[in-house]
Structure formats: C-alpha cells, structure tokens
C-alpha cells in the first residue's frame, strides 16, 4: 500500500493505492472516487460504532473496508470539512483525536471512542478517539494544522484541538470568571500539561455551526 495527498492544503484529499491483500479502513461516506478494481465491504462492527450511535445522532455507524482485485487499484478518500489531511505513523503509544479528526487507518491500528468532557454540560463534552497499535493513521482538520510542542502548560479552546500525544495530561475546564455560559459556545478549554505534541486547527466547527444556525429549517411541531 502507498498513499499520496492530492491538492495539499485547504481541500486536500487522500489517494491510496492498493495491491491485492492490502486494506484500508475508513468511516462511512469518505469515498470520493475510485478505480473499478476496488471492492467495498461495509460492516457495522468496530468500536467506532459506539461513538457514532452515541454522538453523531445515528448518522452512520458503519465502517467501510476497501480492498483491490488488481495491482495498484486507486481510491481517493476525503473528509467533510475543508482543511489539511495528514498521516501519522503509530508505534504503540496512543494518540488522542478530536472526534471529527479521524479519517482512515491501516489494519494494524485500532481505534476506540471515549467521552471525556464535563458530564452534564450539554453538547460541550469532549468526545475523543483513541488510536493505538502499529500502522498509519490518517487524520484531518478544519483549517490548517499547527504542531505545538508543549513543555509545561498550554491552553487550547475545545473547538480547536485536533489531536495530542497521550504523554500529555489534560483537563477540560471553563474559561473566564464572570459571564461564562453556553451563550457563546467557547465555555470550555483544554489545559495541557507535561511534555508532548498537540496539533491545533485554525478554525472551529462550533463557530461555523453557530453561524449556520439561522439558515437551517425549523422542525415543525407535528413531526
């Protein structure tokens, strides 16, 4: 298996070449285009299922497994959000990803979903994906990805943390001292401490969701 990032930058895409016997696993709905030799197997299994059911309003809790019947069969995978796609080589030490940051992985990697937020604080919890094992993990961000080497303390708004190494301690806390509420959506920050890398994205999904609110249709009372 080898891969290439097409159109690097804002609208990057992941192109994977598969030989017979190779396999790439991805969440449902990420295939953009592919050669006819590519075969798909859809399964409801996997631990991602729990995350999907619990968090994403039952959108899709299926995982797709792609293989090729010919040498060098190509498939292109993309994320929903505009932003960078990057690959990370895992060698045992777990990496923690924000839920929207997971794109795909090779068979040696395992992914698991966890809730990590302030319990009872609606919609502001921190749902994260633990990735561990040995292999390649593909992740994406909303915006550009900045790598921050944390030595000591660092604060990142909940909406902007993409991924971080498990060697870092982190706590989810509230900002500000006066009027801090759900009114403006950034009630929560992640405080990192220790040594390790944090990847930060340059835009927030919560911020875009707030902007889009008035453009959504209103649910009728009868339905």
């Amino acid at each position, binding site marked *: 298996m080898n891969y290439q990032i097409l159109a690097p930058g*804002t*609208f990057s895409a992941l192109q994977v070449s598969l030989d017979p016997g190779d396999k790439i696993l991805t969440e449902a*709905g990420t295939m953009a285009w592919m*050669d006819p030799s590519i075969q798909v197997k859809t399964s409801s299994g996997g631990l991602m299922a729990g995350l999907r059911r619990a968090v994403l309003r039952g959108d899709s809790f299926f995982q797709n497994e792609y293989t090729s019947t010919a040498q060098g069969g190509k498939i292109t995978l*993309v994320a929903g959000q505009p932003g960078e796609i990057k690959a990370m080589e895992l060698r045992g030490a777990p990496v923690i990803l924000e839920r929207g940051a997971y794109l795909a992985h090779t068979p040696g990697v395992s992914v698991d979903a966890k809730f990590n937020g302030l319990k009872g604080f609606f919609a502001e919890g921190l749902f994260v994906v633990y990735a561990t094992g040995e292999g390649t993990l593909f992740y994406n961000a909303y915006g550009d990805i900045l790598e921050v080497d944390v030595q000591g303390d660092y604060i990142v708004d909940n909406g902007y943390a993409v991924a971080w190494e498990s060697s870092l301690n982190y706590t989810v806390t509230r900002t500000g001292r006066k009027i801090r509420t759900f009114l403006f959506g950034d009630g929560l920050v992640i405080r990192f401490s220790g040594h390790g890398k944090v990847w930060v994205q340059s835009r927030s999904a919560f911020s875009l969701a707030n902007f*889009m609110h008035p453009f959504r249709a209103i649910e009728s009372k009868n339905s």
Partner: protein
Amino acid sequence: MSVQVVSNPDFGHLEIVLDQGQTILCESGAMAAMDSDLQLDTKMMGGFLPALWRKVVAGESLLSGVYTAKRAGSRLWLSPPIPGQVIAYSLQDKPLMLTSGSFLACEEGVQLGTKFGGLRAMFSGEGMFFIEARGRGSLWFNSYGAVIEHEVNGEFIVDTGHVVAWEPSLQWTVTGMGNLFSTLFSGEGLVLRFSGSGKVWLQTRSMSGLAGWLAGYCR
C-alpha cells in the same frame, strides 16, 4: 474583454474588465461588486422553455444576469456561492456536461441545456439533472474544493457529489455502490460510473460531506 480567474484554488472568482458594448452572462446572484455604470439585463438561457425546465428540474435559476459595459474599462467581480476553484474552459462546438450548481459565467454564444440523470439519480440527493453547455465561447465553472482533472480510459467510479464536469465522449450511468447492503449503508449513496475515454473534472469536497460533518456540531 479581460477576464481573470483570481484566488484559485480556494476562493476562485472572476475579475473582469469590459470594453464598451461588451457583455458577459452569469449565474443569478453572482455579482459581488462593480462599477456603477454597468447595465444589467436578465436573460433566460436558451429561451423560455429550456430555462423553465432547468429551473423546475435542476434547481438552477430561471434568469441569468447579463452585464453590459457602456464605456471602456468597466470593472465587474463575479463569485460563486461556495469556496473552491474556478475553471476557465473554451467551448468549441464540442459540448461539456456540468453538474447542477457548477455554472458561473459565459460569453454570448454559449447555450445551456438540461440532461436527465436517470431514475436512480432521483434518489441521490445530489440533483438528478445535469447541465449541457454547447456552442462557442468562454465558459467558467466552479467547484466545491480543489479540482482534479482525470483522463478516463476504461471505467471509473465517482461519488455523485464529487463530479464537477465531464466530456460527453464518456458514457455514464448512475448506479449504487457494491452490493445492496453497501449501497444502503456505505454512506456513499449513488455513484456515477463512467466508461469510454474522455476527461472528467473531480472536486475534492462535497456539500453533502460538509453537511454530514457539521451536523455533529449543530445544536
């Protein structure tokens, strides 16, 4: 007439300078800014019935904007509603197929028509009709995301939301993905299956993909 595509690939749009009497046609609502003495007219592309057809079935606007300069050096900016790439294409009698929403602007001499995507396309949610551009002249179309040009030789499969345009030398059908289970649950919906040889313009993001991601953050 000078038409420049600027801010590609992320925010492609057109910076236009018209000479006296020159005209450019554009998608409804595309004007971002202009010199105040440009004259605006509206036109039903291809006449009333084709325009009405495109409005009803393809969700395109009924009328296109037609901007004409009264003096030399009139400036006009045209923008698509979504971020992405704008492609300039010179149409020389050979038609070009566009997915609905991809048309941005054209010179006089280009006509737009409508093609039915087949019954299955009705369920894809991506628009079941495609636009066929014919005639001679410059045409500008836009994508959501970066554009990848791909030469098809044989067969090629694309999620319907990732197609921007293709040459009609290609045969195409709208089909499901893999077996019935995968069609229903793979999250891919329907795909366009191309065969033959010709060029297809692909986009690296889709509006339904964007909506699917953002839905997880909506309250």
